[in-house]
C-alpha cells in the first residue's frame, strides 16, 4: 500500500487495526479467505496512502480519514424503492444481505457470506496493486454482499438493483456479478444511507463484474450517501470478446468519497463506455479514479465525466488509460469537464495516457471553467432571472451526459435524481 514507512500511526489506522483484532472471530471465511484478510491488514499496518503515493495524490487518505466509527450501526435501515421501476431489489442493510433471495429467470443469486464461508471467492479478494487501499480495507473486513450469476444468453427483462444501505457504523460489502456470454442486463448499484446520530459512517464497497463474450451490460452506480459518511468504493470489470459495458456513475453525496473504476478489456472487439456526473456540494471531498487497461488489440473506449462544484467542495478526477504493447488498433477517448461555481471550491484533474502500442488513436481533453457569460447573457436577455438561468445552464451541462444513454426509462429516472439534487442544492 504505502511504500513509505510512517513514523506514527494515525488514530484511524490504529482504530482499523484494533477493530480487525476484535472482529476477526466474527468474520466469515475459510482458511484461504482468512489468509487474504491477514495479508490485507498487514498492508494497512504499513500505513494508509498519503499524497506521496501517486494514485492518491489528491486524496491523502491518511490525513483525510480522521475518524473510524465503531462497527455497530446507529439505526435500522429499510430497503429503498428502486431507481428504475419494476427492478428486482437485493438490499444489503447495515452490511448484511437479505436471507430471502429473489427468483429471476436465468439468474442465480447467492449471499456473499456463504461464498466467503466456503472460500470460493478467495482468489478474487487480492487487492489489485500495492496502492489499492480500498481493496485491502474491504478484503480485511468484508462480511457480506451478493453474488449474482446471469446465465449465458439470458436477456433480463427487469433491471436488478443492488442496494448497499447504512445508518452509521461500518459496513464492508462486496457485490459480485458474472454476466454470461451473449446475455443482456441492466444493473443498478445503489449506495446510500441515513445520517446516524453521532454522524459517522465508514463504508467500503467493492463490485466485481465479469462481462462474458458478446454480452451487453449497463451498470449504474448511484451514490447518495449522507454528508457524514466516508464512502470508499471500487468497481472492477473485465470485458470479454465483442462485449459491451456501459458504466454510469453518479456521485451526489458523502463527505469523503472515493470511487475507483478499474476496467480491463480482455477480448477483441470489447467496448467500454464510462459516463460520470459528480455533483459536489457542502464540504465533500469526492474523488473518481479510473484505471483502464486496453490489454488486447481492437478494443474501444470513451469516457465522459462532468463535474459541478459548489460550496466548499473539493473534487478530483484521475483517469489513466493504459494501452498495452500488443493492443494495436485501440481507440480510446476521455474527456473531463468541470464547472467550478464557487470560489471556495476546487477541482483537480489528472487524465493520463500510457501508451506502448503505436497503431492507436488515443486522446483526452480536460477543462475547468465557470459558466459561460455569453450563455448567461443569452438567457437573461430573454427575461430569465440570473439564478434560474444559471440553474438551467448547470443542469444542461450534466444532463447532456445522461441523455446520451439510449434507454428512455433510464434517462428519466436519472433526470429525476438530478432534479432532486438541484432542488436541495441549486
Amino acid at each position, binding site marked *: 500500500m504505502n511504500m513509505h514507512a510512517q513514523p506514527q500511526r494515525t488514530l484511524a489506522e490504529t482504530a482499523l487495526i484494533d477493530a480487525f483484532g476484535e472482529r476477526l472471530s466474527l468474520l466469515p471465511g475459510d482458511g484461504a479467505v482468512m489468509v487474504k484478510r491477514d495479508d490485507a491488514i498487514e498492508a494497512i499496518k504499513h500505513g494508509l496512502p498519503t499524497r506521496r503515493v*501517486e494514485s492518491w*495524490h489528491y486524496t491523502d487518505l491518511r490525513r483525510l480519514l480522521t475518524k473510524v466509527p465503531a462497527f455497530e450501526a446507529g439505526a435500522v435501515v429499510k430497503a429503498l424503492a428502486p431507481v428504475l421501476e419494476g427492478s428486482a431489489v437485493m438490499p444489503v442493510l447495515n452490511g448484511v444481505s437479505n436471507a430471502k433471495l429473489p427468483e429471476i429467470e436465468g439468474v442465480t443469486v447467492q449471499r456473499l457470506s456463504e461464498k466467503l464461508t466456503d472460500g470460493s471467492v478467495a482468489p478474487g479478494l487480492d487487492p489489485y496493486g500495492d496502492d489499492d487501499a480500498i481493496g485491502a480495507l474491504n478484503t480485511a473486513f468484508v462480511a457480506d454482499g451478493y453474488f449474482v450469476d446471469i446465465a449465458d444468453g439470458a436477456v433480463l427483462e427487469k433491471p436488478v438493483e443492488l442496494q448497499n444501505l447504512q445508518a452509521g457504523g461500518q459496513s464492508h460489502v462486496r457485490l459480485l456479478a458474472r454476466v454470461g456470454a451473449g446475455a443482456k442486463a441492466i444493473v443498478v448499484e445503489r449506495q446510500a444511507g441515513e445520517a446516524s446520530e453521532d454522524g459517522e459512517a465508514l463504508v467500503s464497497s467493492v463490485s466485481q463484474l465479469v462481462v462474458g463474450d458478446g454480452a451487453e451490460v449497463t451498470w449504474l452506480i448511484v451514490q447518495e450517501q449522507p454528508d457524514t459518511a466516508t464512502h470508499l468504493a471500487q468497481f472492477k470489470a473485465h470485458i470479454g470478446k465483442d462485449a459491451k459495458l456501459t458504466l454510469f456513475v453518479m456521485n451526489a453525496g458523502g463527505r469523503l468519497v472515493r470511487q475507483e473504476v478499474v476496467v480491463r478489456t480482455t477480448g477483441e472487439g470489447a467496448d467500454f463506455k464510462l459516463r460520470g456526473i459528480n455533483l459536489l456540494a457542502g464540504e465533500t471531498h469526492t474523488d473518481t479514479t479510473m484505471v483502464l487497461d486496453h490489454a488486447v488489440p481492437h478494443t474501444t473506449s470513451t469516457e465522459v465525466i462532468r463535474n459541478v462544484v459548489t460550496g466548499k467542495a473539493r473534487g478530483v478526477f484521475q483517469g489513466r488509460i493504459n494501452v498495452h*504493447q500488443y493492443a*494495436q488498433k485501440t481507440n480510446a477517448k476521455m474527456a473531463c469537464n*468541470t464547472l*467550478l*461555481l*464557487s*470560489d471556495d*471550491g*476546487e*477541482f*483537480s*484533474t*489528472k*487524465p*493520463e*495516457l*500510457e*501508451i*506502448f*502500442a*503505436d*497503431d*492507436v*488513436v*488515443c*486522446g*483526452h*481533453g*480536460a*477543462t*475547468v*471553467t*465557470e459558466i459561460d457569460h455569453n450563455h448567461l447573457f443569452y438567457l437573461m436577455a430573454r427575461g430569465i432571472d440570473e439564478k434560474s438561468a444559471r440553474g438551467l445552464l448547470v443542469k444542461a451541462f450534466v444532463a447532456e451526459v445522461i441523455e446520451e444513454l439510449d434507454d428512455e426509462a433510464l434517462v428519466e429516472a436519472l433526470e429525476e435524481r438530478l432534479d432532486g439534487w438541484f432542488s436541495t442544492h441549486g
Partner: protein
Amino acid sequence: MPAVQETIDRVRKIDVDQYKYGFQTEIEMDKAPKGLSEDIIRLISEKKGEPDWMLEWRLGAYRRWLTLEEPTWARVHYPKIDFQDIHYYAAPKSTPGPKSLSEVDPELLKVYEKLGIPLKEQEILAGVQKPAAADEDEIGDNVYKSGRVAVDAVFDSVSVVTTFKEELAKAGVIFCSISEAIREHPELVQKYLGSVVPTSDNFYATLNSAVFTDGSFVFVPKGVRCPMELSTYFRINEKNTGQFERTLIIAEEGAYVSYLEGCTAPQRDENQLHAAVVELIALDDAEIKYSTVQNWYPGDAEGKGGIYNFVTKRGDCRGDRSKISWTQVETGSAITWKYPSCILRGDDSSGEFYSIAVSNGYQQVDSGTKMIHLGKNTSSRIISKGIAAGFSQNTYRGQVSAHRKATNARNFTNCDSLLIGDQCGAHTVPYMEAKNATAKFEHEATTSKISEDQKFYVMQRGIPEEEAIALIVNGFVKDVIQQLPMEFAVEAQKLIGISLEGSVG
C-alpha cells in the same frame, strides 16, 4: 533532414548510433579528486575565489542535500548513481581568465569550431577592436538585425570565454560567467540567486547549489532591450565528471532578453551526470525568452552510456505584465528529467512553454512544465510535442494550477505524441488544479502514429519513406520550431531529422 540525406553515410542509415558530437578532446585538465564532501566544496569555492557568504551558501545546501532522498516518481529507470564516483570540478588548465580569444587554448577553440560555434569568427565579424564612432549610435538596432549572437562557452566546469562583452556592456547588459558575477557583482547575485529555486528545492537542485561550478549570468537593466541574442554553449568533455552549471537571468522593468543554450558531450560508455539549475526573474513589463537545444550524448544503440540530464529550470514572473517563454528542443541525453516552469506571480503576467522532445534508441524522457498561477489575469500556454521511436519512453508531465486569488487565470495546453514503431511508449500525465471559480483551463492531448494516408501522399510524390517521415514530423512540430530564434530553427529541424534516422522499418 531530407535535404542533407545524401551527405549522410548510407551504411549508417539503419543505425541510431550516429551522434555527431561524440569526439573527445585531449586538453590538460585541472580536476578535483572524486567524491563529495565539505572539503571539496571548500576547494571549489576557493578555486573560484568566492566570498565567504557564497561558501556558506554552498555548505548550507550541501548539509541540506545530505538529508534528502533521490526522487523516484518520474517514469525513468537507471542504476543508482554513486555520487562519490564523480569529479565535481574539472577545468582546462590554461584558464585563469583569458582576456581575449588569443589567450584561449587553441585546442579549446577547435572544439567549438567542430561544434559549429565559431567564437573567433564572430568576434572578427563584430569588429569589436575598432568600432567606428559614427556607427555606435546605430548599434542598438543594427546588431539585432545582423543576427549576431553573443556566446558564453562553458567547458566542463568553467566558462572559457564570453564574446561581445564590451558591446553588451555599452547597452548596460551584463553577460558573463556566474563565477565572474559572484566576484564582480556580488550585490546582484546575492539578491537574486536562489530566490526562484531555493537551495532546499529538490534533490538535484540542492546538489547543484552545493557544487555548481559555472554557468551564465545575465542582467538586463531597466528599459533595455538586449541588442543581440545571448547564448551559452555547454560541453562536457572530461571523463567521470558531473556538470553542474547555474544560470541566472534577470530582466529589470521593461527589459527584454532572448537567450539560447546548447549542449553536447563526447561518446562514452559510462553515464555522466548533468544537474543544472536555471533561474529567470522578470520584473514589471519585462520579457525573457529562453530557448534550449539539448543534444547531450544519448547513449549508443544498445542504450549504453549517455548523459543523465536532471535539470531544474524555473522562471519567476515577479512583476506585473511580465512574460517568460520557454522553448526547448530535446533530442539528446540518455535520461531527461526536466520541467521548465513559470511562477506567474505578477498580475497580468504570462508564461509559455513550447517543447519538442524526440527520443530514439533507449532514451527515456520525462519532461514537461509547471504553470503556477498566483496573480490576477495571468495566462499560460503549453504546446508539447513528443516523438518516440526505437525502444524509447517519452513522457509529458505537466502541472497547471490556479490558486485562490488567481482570478481569471487562463491556460491552454496541447500535448501531442507521435509513436514510430511498436517498441516505444508515449505517456501523458497532466495535472490540473483549480481553486478559483474564474479560472479557465483547457487541456487536450492526442497520441497517434503517422497515418499511412499521410505517408502515401508524400511518397507518391517521389519522396523516399524516411524523408517523408521527416517531413511529416517537421509538420507535426512546426508550432514549436516557429518559436525558436531563426538561426536555431534550422539547426533544430536538422537535429530532429538526425535523431529519427534509422527509426523506420
